[in-house]
């Protein structure tokens, strides 16, 4: 506020001065300082994963599907983690796998939230009406079958491609998002300001986006983390089963399956046995990290205390 003196005192100026004192980065820093070590660990791991995923082509020493004449090469200088059954560099595939696996899981989760979130809020506005009942009953039925089994049925119908995988898992997972967003929006739709907006003549879309959505954000963010983990594990499991992401796309689930045979050589060459464990551990580490962060966020936003 350099020109504050010329204009004299203004309440808005004073407020903006106080607001400006704490920039976005400062408030983020304040939040981070109070975070427990587990959450810090989780956030560090997630950032490293994201950096690897974004800069995969720069970081990977070899191409994603580049085939070298040596299959099952041992760990060494040329190939840090050896090569797989076709002679592809495991390290490069791990790095590209971050991009593919996290990218597909993220796209699926976002799609699931777009579907489930908007339908959930719409159902809450229509509480007790035809739309609400119809949606809720169909969701009940979709949730009555375990989603892995359902995904297997749908994949056998439509064939296993990346697009089908994203669509199928997103629709199946949107049921959980629907439940959560409907439940939390039910408390918001009865508020006076929502009523005021509707009396003002705002459309349903505007009410959903501008009045309800900002007020149900914290539980939805927590749900996003949990859903991401779940989607990520489901896709990894499907790829591991051979009906998910298809070769030659590098992905952690199918990498485990392709190199799993090496595990029996643990006695002779421990590094060979560790080759299939690397992608599996990459999946496990990311899930644990996200869980840690979600846990912290849950405690922070809800003021929830441990039971002891």
């Amino acid at each position, binding site marked *: 506020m350099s020109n504050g003196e010329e204009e004299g005192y203004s309440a808005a100026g004073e407020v903006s001065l106080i607001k400006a004192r704490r920039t976005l980065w400062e408030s983020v820093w304040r939040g981070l300082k109070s975070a427990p070590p587990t959450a810090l660990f989780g956030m560090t791991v997630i950032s490293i994963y994201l950096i690897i995923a974004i800069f995969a082509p720069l970081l990977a020493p070899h191409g994603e599907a580049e085939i070298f004449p040596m299959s099952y090469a041992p760990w060494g200088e040329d190939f840090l983690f050896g090569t797989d059954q076709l002679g592809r560099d495991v390290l490069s595939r791990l790095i590209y796998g971050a991009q593919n696996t996290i990218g597909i899981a993220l796209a699926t989760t976002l799609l699931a939230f777009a579907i489930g979130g908007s339908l959930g809020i719409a159902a809450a506005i229509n509480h007790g009406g035809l739309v609400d009942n119809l949606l809720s009953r169909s969701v009940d*039925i979709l949730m009555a*079958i375990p989603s892995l*089994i359902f995904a297997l*049925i749908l994949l*056998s119908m439509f064939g296993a491609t990346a697009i089908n995988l994203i669509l199928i898992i997103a629709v199946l997972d949107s049921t959980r998002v629907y439940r959560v967003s409907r439940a939390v929006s039910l408390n918001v739709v009865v508020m006076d300001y929502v009523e005021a907006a509707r009396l003002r003549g705002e459309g349903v879309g505007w009410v959903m986006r501008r009045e309800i959505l900002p007020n149900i954000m914290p539980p939805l963010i927590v749900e996003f983390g949990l859903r991401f983990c779940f989607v990520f594990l489901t896709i990894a499991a499907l790829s*591991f089963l051979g*009906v998910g992401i298809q070769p030659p796309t590098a992905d952690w689930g199918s990498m485990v399956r392709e190199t799993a045979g090496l*595990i029996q050589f643990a006695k002779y060459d421990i590094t060979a046995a560790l080759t299939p*464990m690397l992608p599996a551990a990459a999946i496990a580490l990311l899930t644990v990290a996200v869980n840690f962060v979600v846990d912290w966020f849950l405690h922070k936003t809800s003021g929830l205390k441990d039971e002891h």
Partner: protein
Amino acid sequence: MHPVISTVLQRLGLGLITLFVVSIIIFSSIEFLPGDFGEAILGQAALPETVAAFRAELGLDLPLHERYFDWLGGVLTGDMGNSFSGRGSSGGTDRSRPVIELIAPRLANTLFLASMAAIISVPLALFLGVTTALYRNSIYDRVVNALTLTTISFPEFFVAYLLILFLSSFTNLFPSLANIGSDTTFWERVYLSALPALTLTLVIIAHMMRMTRAAIINLMASPYIEMANLKGVSKTQVILQHALPNAWAPIVNVIAFNLAYLVVGVVVVEVVFVYPGVGQLMVDAVTSRDVPVVQGCAIIFAATYILLNLFADIISIVTNPRLLHPR
């Protein structure tokens, strides 16, 4: 009518409706196959007559609802049609097998594995839950909590390969492949299924143990427990005789829920250990798009899952004292 009976009947009705709708969804999966799938199954060289006969056998020339009830009647009487695999285009010999013949022996194997996992995990989870509640905030409690939190966020195949690495590759304690045939004796079977069962145990135990612990700790704050404490009843007695009986409802509920989850967990674990069960059959059938087999496996998985969840619901209704003694 007594409120318990009416609620239970309501749940049963809902369960049946769900099962019905689910069967329609599973049935209609054959509708979505691409138009030329007859050729895809029988091969490029299949004669048009063979393809037409194949379509007629599947009943694709009949109206939809007629086919559905035909199929449902078949499933209920144990006839799920014939598998697509083994149908040759040449010679006209049909080597395909009835789906029920493929599923039946594998279903027994899967049930064996699931019950073995349940027999290990349920008592262990209860024991860990009660003891961690008893020694709350001790080192033991913290270690068990941290371990179960970790296993809950690991993918099944990671747990499975960790177990293979340590218990099979390094030490040769257990076989890494569950090579089970029809002539395997019972104890051999137990030995061969040890690692898969252990994997499943580790995957489902966390949830049950944490629920038991939370349910007991939740009750410990109630006045009647304080009364028992003040009377000088020992801590173990308080938990076992005063807290546990009232904690049963949520615990049994979560146990049934996790047994239902075994149905899903079993798919991945069977593939890891090449265990000849329904899960592996289903995955193979999905890969080769053998729809009748996928349908057969899916209906078994879905029915088991729905029934176990229904059972959990009914248990929690029946054991709820508030419903048992209406005002």
